[in-house]
């Protein structure tokens, strides 16, 4: 235990403000849980939904037109697509970060925190770019 931790008043009682504002998940933990959530979302429902879209759009000329000119123009569908792109981008970037960590790249506290921030920002920027292009 470091001396800084030892000097803090103990015991510490969990008050609502403490839970809300003092105790925060560190950036790498935030990226980690989002990696899990985005992965679960990609498994279901996004994989099934995209397969359905691929199926319909490849099955026939009418199916393609229906998907492209009608279905994909609906705002709720565009919103869902944007959520998908965020989930994919985040899972992609965080996954590459975890692979690098696995081969002992950037495992010190500083670089690990910084790369977690980069993952969050890059995936949000990619999502914003996609959203701007489809709207």
């Amino acid at each position, binding site marked *: 235990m470091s001396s800084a931790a030892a000097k803090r008043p103990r015991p510490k009682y969990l008050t609502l403000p403490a839970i809300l504002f003092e105790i925060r998940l560190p950036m790498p933990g935030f990226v980690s849980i989002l990696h899990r959530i985005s992965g679960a979302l990609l498994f*279901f429902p996004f994989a099934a939904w995209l*397969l359905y879209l691929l*199926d319909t759009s490849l*099955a026939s000329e009418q199916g393609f037109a229906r998907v492209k000119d009608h279905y994909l123009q609906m705002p709720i569908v565009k919103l869902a697509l944007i959520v998908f792109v965020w989930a994919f981008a985040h899972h992609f970037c965080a996954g590459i970060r975890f692979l690098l960590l696995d081969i002992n790249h950037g495992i010190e506290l500083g670089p690990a925190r910084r790369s977690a921030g980069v993952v969050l920002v890059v995936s949000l920027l990619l999502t914003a770019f996609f959203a701007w292009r489809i709207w």
Partner: protein
Amino acid sequence: MALYTLVLLVALMRGRPTDYGAWKGLFQNGWMRVATLLFAVSLAWHAWVGVRDIVMDYIKPDGLRLGLQVVTILLLAGYVGWTVQVLWR
């Protein structure tokens, strides 16, 4: 899978398959069919590992855990079968 993502993005941006013929043509290429199938199989395997970890972390009762894992396997097998059906029609 990362490689397939990049290949697909490049193919979409260079080819711009905005009509049915081009879209269908893209997925009728032999290499595209094989790449997409490889992607689907890799994805199913990867999703199995990930979902299995999630289920093992949060679902404690044995029966429910086994049930969810069986559902996961069936769903993933269904995805792969569906992909084959879409690609070779």
